[in-house]
């Protein structure tokens, strides 16, 4: 739209240079605006060189090299898109393609290493599209995980293991608090590698524990949070400040407990573990949960201060400190109420079922991980990223239609190849059957329908990972841009008014034929010109600021990773 109008307006503007009519000047200004904005708008994935990826098609090696040269900041994005396009549309059974995919993934993952540098760390999420792409946390984790899968399929455990470790680390790193990963498949594949390498049982313990704890996290999270909500809903003093704070802390405490408490913990012990570790989270509540804290508690504290006639800063601070001071005491009574309800209400059954499911499923996963054949399937389209806000300054992850936000392990009967190696399955999905040794990698077309469990859901992972601050930075920039535009618009209207006033004075001067009157008109014209100049300067100050969030993401990743058991 902008591009098609541009030549007409520009040519009019060019002709208008010959006269100083204010309307023509305005047109010239508009034409320049259009020319400027039309150059800035194209998002990376819509650039011609990236278009094949929109159709899930890989590009040739030459085209990929061309992208690397012409747009080095998008190299990692192009490599990741190419790797996943090859997984989706390439000949996945070909050794050369597998090697190419693995190489692309490795190159991408190695660029994440520069996050060790604190300067780069703060820029890691590439708030701007003109900064080097480093992927979002779930993309990095998944890239590292898939590298491990391809290396493990090639019976290269020495190389695969560090990638699984890295995936665990990358997943844990960007959570609100330092948890391990909740993707059981990362631990299951690590265990397989450790077992193949002949590592002792004690050295395998981290991976075995990881399987149990991540499965427990997914099986018990919903019933435990439901129990917490029920306790809050049946709380006599649910609006008391310390109680509200205690619920916030207990929620995080329960997540922590599910991923950290000893494997043989009962429901009661899990709740107790969460309450005992509450002090870890009390300190973090105002920093790690700043927005929730402000929304849920700051307003309550302010009202409370008004009631108590302590609305001054010191009074507010004292009330806040008192609320924090009371949390430990409230936490202990909250723990008792949770345990009472867990034992005596209908929640008991759901909780015990969750605990039982954690045990039985993790045992099944361990058996599948250690068996001669381990069957993995990769299906569906991963989460998408959309931009919202007046200036596209907010980026939001949308759950894939193939996925779910719920913390659950989905189960389904999956028709899967069972012979060793890579196989194209339905559409763009693929399966890999890991075999203990190369000799057993014999190709036979044998498809079986088997119960399978989703042990890594990318949408949930993408939505769960939080603590990113770049949206706020962009929000600030959007506000600045909006302010400059508003000031520019207002002063431009002011300039028009002054021009109009000058014209009126000039007309009346002509009628009265008074020279001194003309000077007044020129003075008003001068003021109009200065106002117009000011408007232009303010507009130019705001113009180079691009508050849009980064639109780049790897849309070709798989939503679900299944383990057939």
């Amino acid at each position, binding site marked *: 739209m902008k591009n098609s109008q541009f030549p007409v307006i520009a040519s009019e503007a060019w002709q208008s240079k010959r006269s100083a009519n204010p309307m023509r000047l305005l047109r010239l200004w508009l034409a320049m605006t259009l020319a400027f904005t039309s150059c800035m708008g194209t998002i990376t994935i819509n650039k011609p060189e990236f278009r094949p990826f929109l159709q899930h098609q890989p590009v040739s090696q030459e085209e990929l090299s061309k992208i690397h040269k012409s747009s080095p900041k998008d190299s990692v994005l192009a490599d990741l898109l190419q790797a996943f396009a090859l997984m989706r549309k390439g000949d996945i059974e070909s050794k050369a393609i597998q090697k190419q995919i693995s190489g692309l993934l490795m190159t991408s993952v190695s660029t994440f290493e520069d996050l060790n540098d604190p300067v780069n760390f703060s820029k890691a999420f590439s708030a701007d599209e003109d900064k080097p792409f480093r992927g979002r946390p779930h993309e990095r984790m998944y890239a590292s995980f898939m590298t491990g899968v391809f290396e493990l399929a090639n019976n290269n455990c020495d190389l695969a293991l560090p990638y699984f470790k890295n995936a665990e680390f990358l997943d844990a790193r960007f959570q609100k608090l330092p948890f391990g990963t909740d993707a059981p498949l990362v631990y299951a594949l690590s265990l397989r590698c450790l077992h193949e390498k002949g590592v002792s049982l004690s050295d395998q313990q981290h991976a075995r524990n990881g399987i149990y704890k991540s499965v427990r996290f997914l099986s018990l999270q919903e019933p435990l949070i439901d129990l917490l909500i029920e306790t809050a809903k*049946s709380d*006599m*003093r*649910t609006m*008391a400040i310390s109680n509200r704070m205690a619920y916030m802390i207990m929620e995080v405490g329960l997540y922590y407990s599910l991923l950290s408490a000893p494997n043989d913990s009962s429901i009661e012990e899990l709740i107790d573990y969460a309450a005992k570790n509450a002090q870890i989270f009390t300190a973090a509540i105002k920093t790690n949960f700043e927005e929730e804290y402000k929304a849920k508690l700051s307003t309550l504290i302010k009202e409370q201060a008004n*009631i108590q006639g302590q609305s001054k800063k010191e009074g507010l601070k004292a009330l806040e400190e008192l609320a924090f001071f009371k949390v430990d005491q409230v936490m202990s009574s909250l723990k008792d109420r949770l345990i*009472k309800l867990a034992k005596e209400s209908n929640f008991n059954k759901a909780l015990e079922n969750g605990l039982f499911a954690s045990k039985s499923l993790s045992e099944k996963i361990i058996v599948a991980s250690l068996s001669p054949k381990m069957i993995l399937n990769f299906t569906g389209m991963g989460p998408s990223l959309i931009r919202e806000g007046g200036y596209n300054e907010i980026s939001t992850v949308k759950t894939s239609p193939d996925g779910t936000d719920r913390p659950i392990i989905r189960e389904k009967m999956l028709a899967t190849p069972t012979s060793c190696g890579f196989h194209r399955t339905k559409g763009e999905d693929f399966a890999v059957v890991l075999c203990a040794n190369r000799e057993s990698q014999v190709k036979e077309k044998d498809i079986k329908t088997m119960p399978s469990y989703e042990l890594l859901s990318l949408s949930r992972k993408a939505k769960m990972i939080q603590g990113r601050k770049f949206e706020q930075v962009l929000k600030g920039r959007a506000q600045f841009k909006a302010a400059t535009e508003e000031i520019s618009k207002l002063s431009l209207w002011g300039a028009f008014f002054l021009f109009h006033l000058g014209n009126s004075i000039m007309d009346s001067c002509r009628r009265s034929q008074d020279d001194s009157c003309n000077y007044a008109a020129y003075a008003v014209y001068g003021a109009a010109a200065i106002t117009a100049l000011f408007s232009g300067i303010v507009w130019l100050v705001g113009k180079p600021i691009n508050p849009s969030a980064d639109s780049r993401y790897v849309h070709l990743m798989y939503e679900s990773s299944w383990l057939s058991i």
Partner: protein
Amino acid sequence: MKKLFLILFFLNGCAISLKEQSKLYFRNPKKYYGVEAPLELKKRLEKHKTSLEILYGQNKTSQILSCTFLRNQLYVAMLSNNLDSKIKNAALLLEEAYQNDDNEFIKSCENIFKEDFGKIFLSTQKEFLRITS
């Protein structure tokens, strides 16, 4: 005679004002973060009655509802008007108890219901419950 009439008029004005103050919460509770809307509170306690009885004992729901209504009535009145110092002190005590402890809260609430102004607040609650049941 004129003075007596004025005193009676003033006292009558105070009574109306107190009754009105006890109604403020039921009229416009959404203005404040620290209180739940009356109908929402009533429905919540009805819905979670089983859990409430497990946690606080049998037949406690109506007392909890009544005391929470009282706390909310006083909370809204405190933030909207200049209360009489006696009521203000009682309201502050109840709020402190609410912020501190379950038993302390119930005890403080029972004490207020024994007072004359407590009875006025209670009658407003009953009126609300009668209309909404």
